[in-house]
Structure formats: C-alpha cells, structure tokens
C-alpha cells in the first residue's frame, strides 16, 4: 500500500503486454509508449512559460503581503481543511489562489499556483519523499475541483450545434460539489490508515 504508484505503474504496462500478445497489438503498444513520452515532454515544456510567469507573480504577491492576507481571510476554511498548515503560511495563499483559478477553469494559472502550494507545503514536511496530509487533501480538492464554468465542454457543445450549450453548467456545479465533499471526506478518513511522514533517523 505504501508504494501504490509502483504497482499501478507496473501493472498498466504488464497488462498492456499480455493483452498485446492476445490481440496482436504490439505495434500499437510501442506507438502508445513513444507517442506518450513525446506528449509528456511537450506538456512539461509547454508549462515553462506560464510557470515562470506565475511564480514571478506569486513572489510579487507575497512581497506585497497579499498571500498572507488571503490566508488570514480564509482562516476558518484552512483550519478545517488543512489543520497542519499554519494559517499565516504562504502555502495557504497559494492553495487558495490555485483552487480559485481551478474553479474558474483557468488551468494555465491553476497548475503553476498548485505546484507553488505543494512546494510551500514541502517546506513543512519532515520527510521530503512522503506526502503529508494537507498535500493529499489539497491534491484531491484539485482533481475533484468545483467548476463554475466548464468552458471546454461548452465550446464543444457549441461546435456540435447545441441549442442550449450552457445547460451543463448547473449539473457540472452540482456534480463537482458532491465530488469535492467526497474528496475531503475520503482524504480525511483515509489519512488515518497511512503513516504520516517522519523525519528520517540519522545514522550514528
């Protein structure tokens, strides 16, 4: 359980090979691997520009005192969701800004701000290789994030000739709200079953 990603990662590839033997899809597996590797690098390199922009802006916001102001203003929420993070810590401000960008569908801002929040939380982490409770809670909030405007899908519906493309706004809002509640509850319950990160023992 501790290294779940190791098993999922290996299982995906091992199953692919077994299925390829039966389906005769070896060439498609090879293509899938190489194309995905290329896509992964393109995504990462595509992030450089916006990452640089938002990390610069975040530093300005910190210096201007905006990040800690945001953290103080939202203290009741942050105390409930991330009790391990001090309210004045810059991680709170970065998390709030990332989640707000996520709600508005501004993915180009949400990802860099989210990574910034993770970096801030890593400062508080005694064991740099193990996720802390607030990191996981924040991450699940992000993957289940409440969507005010599902912009991509409205665009697709418009392109497909929908007479009422914005009809999906209300159900998306409800579904994401339910998902977000499920995410917080699941993160808070499951965190008890996984040992929290501890400072590594120093060998004498």
């Amino acid at each position, binding site marked *: 359980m501790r290294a*779940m990603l190791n098993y999922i990662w290996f299982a995906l590839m091992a199953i692919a090979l077994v299925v390829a033997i039966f389906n005769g899809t070896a060439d498609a597996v090879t293509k899938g691997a190489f194309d*995905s*590797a290329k896509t992964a690098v393109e995504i990462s390199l595509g992030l450089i520009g916006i990452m640089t922009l938002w990390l610069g802006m975040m530093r300005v916001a910190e210096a201007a005192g905006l990040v800690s102001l945001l953290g103080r203003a939202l203290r009741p929420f942050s105390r409930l969701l991330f009790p391990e993070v001090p309210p004045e810590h810059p991680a709170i401000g970065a998390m709030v800004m990332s989640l707000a960008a996520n709600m508005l569908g501004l993915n180009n801002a949400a990802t860099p701000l989210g990574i910034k929040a993770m970096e801030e939380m890593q400062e508080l982490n005694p064991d740099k290789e193990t*996720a802390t409770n607030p990191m*996981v809670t924040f991450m699940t909030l992000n993957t*289940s994030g409440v969507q005010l405007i599902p*912009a991509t899908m409205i665009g697709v*519906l418009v392109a497909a000739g929908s007479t009422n493309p914005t009809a999906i706004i209300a159900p998306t809002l409800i579904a*994401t709200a339910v998902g977000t509640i499920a995410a917080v509850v699941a993160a808070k319950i499951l965190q008890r079953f996984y040992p929290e990160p501890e400072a590594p023992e120093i060998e004498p």
Partner: protein
Amino acid sequence: MKAVLDAISLWAIPVMLVGIPLIGILRKVKVYDVFIDGAKEGFGVAVKIIPFLVGILVAIGMFRGSGAMDLLTEALRPLLARTIFPPELVPLAILRTLSGSGSLAITTDLIKTYGADSLIGRTAATMYGSSETTFYVIAVYFGAIGVKKTRHAIPAALFADLVAAIATVAVCAWMF
C-alpha cells in the same frame, strides 16, 4: 449568472496580472526585481516534472494502445447494466482519470453520435467538465516536489472521481 461568470473568467487573468504588481507598487515593493527573482524558478520546476509525466503517460499510452482499456470497459459493462449508469459512458468514466486528450476525444465523439442536446451528450459533457485527469495531476504535483510515496492520494482521488461520476449521471437524469 452565465454572463457574470463569463465576464469573470475573461477578465480574471488580466486584472490579476495588473492588480498584483499595482498593490506591490503601493506597498513600495520593487515589483520587477521581485518578479524576476520568483520567475527564475519556473524553468527548473517545469523540467523537474518531465520524468514523472513520461513515466505515467507512457504506461497509460501502452495500456490504451494494447486494447486493454476496451477490455476493461467491456468487462465492467454487464456489472453496470443493472444500475442507472448508461453503458455508453463507461469508457469515458474510466478514461477521464487517465488521459485528458483521450477523454476529450471520447466526449466529443459521444456528443457527435448522440447529439449535442441529447441526454447522453449532455451527461458526457458534464462528466468531462466535472473531473480532472487525476493521474496527470498526481504526477505533476508530486513530481514537482519529488514526493514518491503518495500515501492515500490515489485511493482518495479515485473515490472522489467515482462519486462525481455517479452524481453526474444522477443529476443529468433528473435535470434533462
């Protein structure tokens, strides 16, 4: 309501890009110097994600390429046939957590096949809009800070995705 939300998403970025340095200037911050100082880290963070993202996306690409994804949805279909969950949406519900471009392609295809104003089309659009590509987010966020033991992140996120998918089907069936 829609107009207000549209206006917010249109203006949020430009207003922030000017508003943040404006408050900085008012508080006597050397905004350009501070910006450059923070921005220096951007390249390093983006490059640091590469190995994590290559690892995850390659495994998913192989899984999809082999046809294992189709087998998985076929296997789940009879189980879900007894519920209200429309079988047409099973591939989307599974692929949504794994691949952003793949699930976008499936959603677009469903909307074209069943119609942009059909129940299936709208439910598919809602399902796409109400979730993120979970494994991508995990790879990027934890990859950027070098965390390898993700603890309960995957089970908690997948549980939330499942609940959101069920909620999507229920809400759409009720509303449309």
